[in-house]
């Protein structure tokens, strides 16, 4: 088979495979917890010694603004903030706040995703960022933001 024909055949095969409905295993895998779920939770979670969730929510929004994120969604009552920024693809983050059981502190959980649009493709490819330093860096910015926000800066 000539190279061009081989390429056309491959393209047809790939698009045919893409059009097939996913198998039961593939569908189950879409929601399967990863082996590193506990590690991911630990990486993306910090406890802040304040019960003032509203002030901390403002600090989260401030930290995201400091990092150049635009706020896409926020639900103040549920403590949810979602932001994104374009930076060699699209980076999305979700930050959720919840008070601890004794209501004397607040737990902040962050998740970062990266998406890259492919020319001609319908769906972007993406991944959840698992780099520890991304989360450490974000929580450092958040701590600094809490300080600056408290001082009305």
């Amino acid at each position, binding site marked *: 088979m000539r190279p061009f024909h081989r390429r056309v055949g491959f393209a047809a095969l790939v698009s045919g495979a893409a059009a097939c409905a996913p198998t039961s295993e593939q569908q189950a895998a879409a929601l399967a917890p990863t082996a590193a779920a506990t590690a991911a939770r630990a990486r993306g979670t910090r406890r802040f010694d304040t019960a003032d969730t509203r002030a901390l*929510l*403002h600090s989260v*929004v*401030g930290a995201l*603004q*400091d*990092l*150049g*994120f*635009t*706020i*896409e*969604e*926020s*639900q*103040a*009552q549920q403590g949810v903030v979602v932001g994104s*920024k*374009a*930076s*060699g*693809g699209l*980076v999305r*983050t979700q930050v959720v706040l919840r008070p601890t059981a004794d209501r004397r502190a607040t737990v902040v959980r962050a998740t*970062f995703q*990266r998406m890259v649009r492919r020319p001609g493709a319908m769906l972007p490819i993406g991944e959840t*960022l698992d*780099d520890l*330093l*991304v989360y450490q*860096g*974000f929580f450092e*910015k958040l701590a*600094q*933001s809490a300080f*600056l*926000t408290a001082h*009305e*800066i």
Partner: protein
Amino acid sequence: MLRLACLALIVPALCACQLDSRQQVLATTNTQAAQRAISTRAFDTGDRDKVFQAAVSSLQDLGFVVDRADGVLGTVSATRYGGGLVRFTVTLRQGGGARTIVRASGQLNQHELSDPAPFQRFFEALSQALFLQGNAID
């Protein structure tokens, strides 16, 4: 030889544009405090709702369309097309002594707004909408 020299110039330049995920998330032009200094103003009113409405109408005056607004938290995000894609977020919070603190941030295409000029323009529009002068935060 010349081709090699060109390649030697182009490759590092291309590498400089490539960002890893850490840089994508955490890279900023200014320090946190410096960025806030240029993008934050305090207005001498405790009426946050009034400032919120004024922020929305200022964004409209500047050609933005609001993507979302949260009156409880005090955030407005908007997009403007033309001369590049501009995404802009304005947040409001209560300051001490009947003041409302307004903070803005945004991106022009793939870059964050790190120059004082766009923020000055926005705060001028907001000041006019409010009939109040925005004070710089020390």
